[in-house]
Structure formats: C-alpha cells, structure tokens
C-alpha cells in the first residue's frame, strides 16, 4: 500500500519522566521463578524500588540491593570481596539457580567491573551470575528488561542444527555444558521450524500466544526468558526468533549477531490487528499459509464493539515513557481514535520497522492524520501542547496524572500497560478496559454532579 506521507520524527530535550530501568526486576523476578536479582547501587535505587514496587516489597521478594557505601565508591573496599560476601549470603538464604546483577548508574560511573568479577565469583560460589547494565544513564524503564534478556541470551544453550526439527522440552541443560541430550525424535506435524519468542510475558499470556501459533501449525520451541533459568531455549543457526515487545532491540541484536539466529521483524502482537499481522509475518517467513486469521480478527473486533463505541472519535496524547507507545497508538487509531502525539523514550526504527509501517497503513486505512512521533520528549513542552490541543485522554506517568486531571484532561496511567495483559487477540478487551476507564468514568456521573470535581487550577 502506498502512503501519501511519511512519518515525521522529532527529537526533544529528553527532560521527561520515566521509571528507572532497574524496575525491570519487578516483573522479571516473578517471571523467572528460580532467580535472584541483586541491584548493585546506592540508596537512591533502593528507595525507588521499594516505593515503585509497593506491596511486593513486603512479600519477601527475590531481589535486593547491594548498597554501595562511601568505602566502595572511594575503592577502599574491594568490590569482588564485597560482592562475594553478599552473594554467599544470598546463596545461603535463598539458594537461587541464578543471580542476576543489575548494574546501575553508580557502578557505571565508578567503573566497577561487574562483567569481569562475575565469572570469577560464579566459579567460586557455584551459581551462574548474569550481569545486566540497566542504568538510567543509557536506558529508560522497560529497556531494563532488554539489557537483562540480552545478557541472558548468552547463557542459552547452543542449538545444534538438526534437519529434523524437534518438539518438546528443551531438556534440562546446565549452563556450563553447551549442549547435550537433544532428542530430535518426537516429530510432529506441528513442528515446521525452530521458533523462539523473546520478551517476558505472564505465563498465561505466553500460552495464549503459543496457542495462536499452534492454530497455524507453528510450534514455539521456547521462550526467552523461560519460567525457570535452566529451561532457557536453545539458540543458534537455524533458529528463528521473534520479539513480542517493542523495547527489545538490544536482545534482538544480540540474538542475531552473537547467537546467529534469524530475526522475524514483525509488528507486535498488541491488539487484534497487531496480533494478526504478527502471526501473518511469522507464517510468511516459515512458508505457511495462514488459516482463518481474518475471520478470527473480525470476530474479536465484533466482540469489542461496545468499547470501541466509547473511544471512536476521541483524541489521545501519549507522553511517552515505556516504549509501548507506537503499538498502542497504532491500535488506538485502528479503534477510531485520533492520536495527537506519540512521545517515546527511544525509537529503534529498524527493530520497529514493521510496526511503524503498520502504523502508517492503519492511518491511511482509517483516514486518520499521521501523528507526530517525538523521541526523548520534553514533558514541560508536552504539557503546554496538551493545554492547547485539549486531548480527551492523556496516557502518562503518575507524576503528571493527578495534575492533568486537575486541569480537566482525563488520564490513564501508562505503567499499567506494562503490567497488564495486553498481548494477543484475547487481551484486546483488557487493553480497552484500561483505555476506556477514564472516559467511561467521565460519562458515568449523573449530569450536574460532574461539576463537583471540576478543578479551578488554571494555565
């Protein structure tokens, strides 16, 4: 399809609010059940974690801080000895299968050689140590997961290319041994190829996506990350990989360059349109004729008709903080919304190419204007723009949500999209449930009573 315009990208000052990328431990420690996340940093990180994660901190989480003290900064203490002491303590208390060190801004600035220390300690204490540099100098929020998964990609066992593809469990492969007991037996009509999906999703969402692909006779041979550390999927030449989240560009690069996998660049399975395009792309790469996708998609659209009525014609402004913005905007436009601006912390135009194309096509299809995409946005400027444009809905972080509500702009807290189940066709309702909540709430009040909550704060 030819598009009359091309997408316009802008880049602002980068003065925007987002979460520190170490917040990825919040969902990763729950996903990888036998892991322990150790954030090496100062009080500031710890304070952020304990406040951002709220109640989980009380549930004996499998993460902790290695809190740096003045002696560590000035190198009066030996990093390796200190980390050894702490990791031994973790081993004795929790006995995890893997310890993931999360490097922070501080370890970057004092140039603590975490990558160098890890292999030594790993040998000493007998537990694999993965190092991910999820710091606020380089990354925003969800990109933390990207760094962790990219680091973990190196620990996946080697997949020996076999002519007959295999099915079933990868087998429990220790990380030191590269490859063993791979049984290429158990052939099935499902298995056409070796497909590994990457991105951390709640296990029920992961199995929904597995199921969507199974309908097309595609068997998913593994996920990065897996539920258990020692179930990491085999990687190597001949393995196809496909991302499920838009913020995983480093992981994608690592899988391609270091593990020689073939990347399937597809739009992301968010919304029924995205899910369909995602499956179609995988099918086309694997030479499969997709079956019944169109009917399925239209059925889903029919089922969310009631929500769509609420949002059709409404305008939305994405302030940008979690990199899901392009996919979310594309889905919103397809639902009939008008997107004024897509703020996004970082835009990898190669990794998101298919998604950007779909966005463009969706705009043409829905006869919607192409939104401006603002990389590294400036929150102050955005608020000024919002006060001119008066969008019906702002998707924004919590720092701005209450003040915007007080200025009569309905808001949806963006972080919810990272924790809610939004992938796959089945969860389209869940996304719209979130998006429409502020709008439904506005309409639900008895007329005349709404004015009670009107705020008087100006400009």
């Amino acid at each position, binding site marked *: 399809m030819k598009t009359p315009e091309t997408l316009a990208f802008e880049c602002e000052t980068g003065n925007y609010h987002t979460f*520190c990328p170490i917040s990825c431990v919040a969902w990763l420690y729950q996903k990888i059940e036998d892991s322990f996340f150790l954030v090496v940093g100062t009080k500031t990180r710890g304070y952020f974690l*304990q406040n951002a994660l709220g109640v989980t901190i009380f549930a004996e989480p499998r993460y*902790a801080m*290695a809190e740096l*003290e003045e002696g560590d900064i000035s190198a009066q203490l030996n990093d390796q000895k*200190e980390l050894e002491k702490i990791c031994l303590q973790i081993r004795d208390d929790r006995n995890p299968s893997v310890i993931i060190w999360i490097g922070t*801004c501080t370890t970057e600035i004092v140039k603590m050689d975490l990558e160098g220390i890890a292999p030594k300690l790993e040998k000493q204490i007998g537990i694999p140590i993965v190092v991910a540099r999820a710091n606020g100098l380089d990354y925003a929020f969800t990109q933390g997961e990207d760094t962790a998964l990219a680091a973990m990609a190196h620990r996946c066992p080697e997949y020996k290319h076999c002519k007959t593809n295999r099915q079933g469990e990868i087998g429990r492969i220790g990380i030191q041994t590269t490859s063993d007991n791979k049984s290429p037996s158990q052939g099935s009509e499902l298995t056409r190829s070796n497909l590994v999906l990457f991105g951390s999703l709640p296990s029920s969402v992961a199995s929904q996506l597995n199921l969507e692909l199974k309908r097309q006779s595609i068997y998913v041979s593994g996920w990065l990350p897996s539920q258990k550390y020692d179930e990491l999927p085999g990687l190597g030449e001949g393995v196809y990989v496909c991302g499920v989240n838009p913020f995983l560009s480093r992981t994608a690069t690592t899988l391609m360059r270091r593990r020689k996998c073939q990347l399937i660049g597809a739009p992301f399975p968010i919304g029924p349109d995205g899910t369909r395009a995602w499956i179609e792309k995988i099918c086309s790469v694997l030479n499969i004729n997709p079956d019944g996708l169109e009917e399925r998609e239209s059925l*889903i659209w029919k089922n969310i008709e009631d929500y769509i009525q609420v949002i059709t014609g409404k305008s939305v402004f994405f302030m940008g903080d979690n990199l899901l913005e392009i996919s979310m905007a594309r889905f919103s436009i397809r639902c009939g919304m008008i997107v004024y601006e897509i703020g996004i912390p970082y835009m990898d135009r190669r990794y998101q190419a298919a998604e950007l194309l779909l966005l463009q096509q969706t705009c043409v299809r829905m006869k919607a204007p192409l939104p401006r995409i603002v990389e590294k946005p400036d929150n102050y400027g955005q608020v000024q723009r919002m006060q001119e444009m008066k969008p019906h809905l702002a998707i924004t972080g919590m720092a701005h949500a209450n003040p915007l509500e007080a200025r009569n702009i309905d808001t949806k807290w963006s972080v919810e999209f990272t924790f809610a189940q939004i992938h796959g*066709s089945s969860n389209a309702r869940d996304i719209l449930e979130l998006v429409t909540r502020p709008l439904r709430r506005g309409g639900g009040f008895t007329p005349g009573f709404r004015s009670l909550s009107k705020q008087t704060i100006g400009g």
Partner: protein
Amino acid sequence: MKLAYWMYAGPAHIGTLRVASSFRNVHAIMHAPLGDDYFNVMRSMLERERDFTPVTASVVDRHVLARGSRDKVVSNISRKGEEQRPDLIVLTPTCTSSILQEDLQNFVDRASLYSESDVILADVNHYRVNELQASDKTLEQIVRYYLDRASKEGMSNRSLTDAPSANIIGILTPGFHNQHDCRELKRLLGELGVSINQIIPEGEFLKNLKDLPRAWFNTVPYREMGLMSATFLEKEYGMPYISTTPIGISNAADFITQVEKLLNLWAPVLLGRKLNYDLYVENQTKFVSQAAWFSKSIDCQNLAGKEAVVFGDATHAASITKILAGEMGIRVSCSGTYCKHDVGRFNEQVQGLCDEVLITEDHTEVGDTIARIEPSAIFGTQMERHIGKRIDIPCGVISSPVHIQNFPLGYRPFLGYEGTNQIADLIYNSFNLGMEDHSLDVFGGHDTKGISTKSLSDKKNIDWSPEAESEPKRIPGFVRGKIKRNTEVFAKQNNISEVTIDVMYAAKERSSP
C-alpha cells in the same frame, strides 16, 4: 557494601526535594540520571497533589560522563527560570552526581548571573546523611540564605510582633500526617492566644522569610526536621524554641507549660500581664481530650500489662512509648528507632518506659525482635505492619515511611488534644482487633464453611481437559472463580461438552463486561 531489602529513611536528595517543593514558588533541579525523578510520582500520588511537582532533572547521560555537564546544568537552570519564574532554584545533587565530583557550586554561580531567580546548591552529602537529616539541613540553608541577605540589605525586621506569635518549623510535603498536625498545632497555639507568624516550609513564600525573627518563639514539632533552623535562629536572633512534641496528654501539657514560660519573658512588658494556662490544660485534658478518661475506663483497664513493641522515627516512637507506658499502663517490651543520628535524645526520652531499646536501620532485626517478644500489638511503620501481618499480630502505623493510607482525607492529627483522641482510638483498635481474632479462633471461627459457592459448575455436563484444568492455576486467585464460571456458561451455551484451552480463550474473547 551491604545487602539491603528495605530502608526506613530515604536518600538525601529526597529530603532536599521535600523542603524545596514545600515552599511556594521554589523549583528544584536535580542533577541526576533518567528515572531519578521518582519523587514527583510519590508526591503526586501520596499527597494527591493537584499541581505539577516543581522538580525537574538535568539529566546525566553518557554525554555528561564524557564531557562533563558543562553548560547543560546552567542552561537548564536559566531555562527553568524563564519558563516558570520561581523565586528560588535549588540545584540538588544526587548520589550519582556526587561521584562525578563536578563543581556544581560553579554552575550555580554562573547560573545566578543569568537567572532572575535566586539559585543555591543544596549542601548535603549523599553518603553521610539520610532524607531526614538532609531536609533539616536544606531548610536551615534556605532560612540562613534569606535572613543573611535581608540583614545585609538592612531589610531584616527583628521587632517582636505586638501580640504573642510563633513560627512552626518543619511542616513538609509528603510528611506523616503533617497537614493535620499543623492544623491542630495552629489551633492549640491559637487557643493559647498565640498567633502564627510563619509556617515553614509548607506553603510559605521566600520573600516573607525575613520576618521570621518577629515571632516570640519557634516551635519544632518534629525533632527530625527543623531543629537546625531553630538553633540557627536562636543563635543569630536570640529566638527561643520548643522542641517538645505535643503528642499525648503529658507531652501536650509539657508543651503548654513551656509556651507559658517563653511568653512570660515578654508578656509583662508587652502585654502588661502574666499568662497562666493551668486552667486551660485542665479543661482540655478533662473535656476535649477523651484520652485521660479513656485510660481510666474499663476498656483501658483490660489493656493493662499487655505487651507492645514500638518502632518508628525518634519523635513518634518516643511519644507513643510515653503514651503507652505512661498514660495507658501498657507494657512496652521494646521501643526503637531508625534515627541513628538522634540516639542520645531517644534513649533519654524512653528511659524507664520500656524493657529494651532497639536502634537499627535493619528491618529484619526489628522483625526478629517482634517475633521473639510476640507482643499483643505493634506500633510501627508500614514495614512493621507487614511483619505483623505475617505473624498475625495487629499493628497501628505511627510513623513514616509513608504510604497512601497515611494521607487520609479525614482529619487525623497525631498532635495536640484531638491527636490524643486519634491515638487512643488507634491503640485501642489495634489491641482489640487482635483480641477479637483470638476469641474467634477460640470459638471456632466464622461459621461460613457450609456455604456453597455461587459456582454454576455442574461436573456431570462439563469436563475440563487436563490441559485446560491446569490453566486457571496461572490466573490470579481472585478472578479464577469468575473465569471458570464464565467458561462453563459459555461452554453450555455453545453445547460444548469438554473445556479445552481453546474454549477457555474463546470464552474470554466473548465475555462482555
């Protein structure tokens, strides 16, 4: 390095930001990496603030590491000055920037040449002080800055107000019940005939600070914040201050006696008479506060000798210990604080009121102590509340770290005579909840076991495939039942006899809200 899961007091810059954003029209610029502006979220969510939090970051990224902040900080300061015209911009170092060892003072000097706003650098060391100490220090720094300037310009006004007046020092955003305490303290002083000269930092304009010394005396309701400013004002301007916290009946009476004493230094001269508040104290204690009567009542008799553990910041932990042991006859087995910097005073205050004193910043140590003592109730922070949950001991929250529930919409002061009522409720409810649970257990619990669920399941009609059977286990418990039910309804409607995973998700896709 130390292994830490939880901290009671936040990092230093949080304290600075709390002070800066409490004053009116002051903007803080943090020299920090992306994501460190989490303070904005806390303030916006906890205090349900209607305005944008006046804190921005001058982002430290790779370029800054490579070349230094150079003009970035300076241009960010002057830009903010133009955009929002604050009276003061506080450049706030973070732990990251303090390692970079850039000459932030130089940036401040340069920026103040261009900017119409005043610019200062918060003078706090990240590795030596915590949130509370930093807020104390920053408040003093700002007060000193404006008073010094006023006296240089000959603008300072040291004449006492005609009527007795006081400053309240140390009311901060997001502070534990601070807003309510402030209102109660204002009322209390008002009833004593003392008007409020200024409340700092909350809601005060900087241009008014020059009139701080006009008050007859200062009150510092919380020892953790404001003590430095009060001692500065005492030293430089001869202003006396009261650092007794009027939490509890005896503390309140003590506070009022001190007010009386301070006022009577000037009252005979300026008012032509001496003040006496004995009758006021008696009336309040007997009729406004129910706490004195409560401790006499049968309810409180039942609590006599019961064991409690107290933990929190120095102010609240000491005051609550005093109330429990001194006013209600409850045995405080252990009283503790995480304010390590104020240990001497804390020890002095709780001496003789508790069996042991615990000074620690490690919540596991607190947890272990509680588990060992097994008190009937805990009075602590949000962390102790969760420790209590785990071992089934009720907990009343009496101190920060704060949580959204510590920002009640209703009036809940801890200070003054209304505060004594609130605290009595809190204490009584905590103990009583525990006793209620206990007696329920004794009598066999709520008699609800026979009630069948509302489930529509009819095992005869619908089978779940083993695969599908295991699927709901992955769904959070609180929605599991609903999903199972919806799936079975869907299966019935569509004449499906076996529920497979496909059927489950088909049902989910169809289900209407």
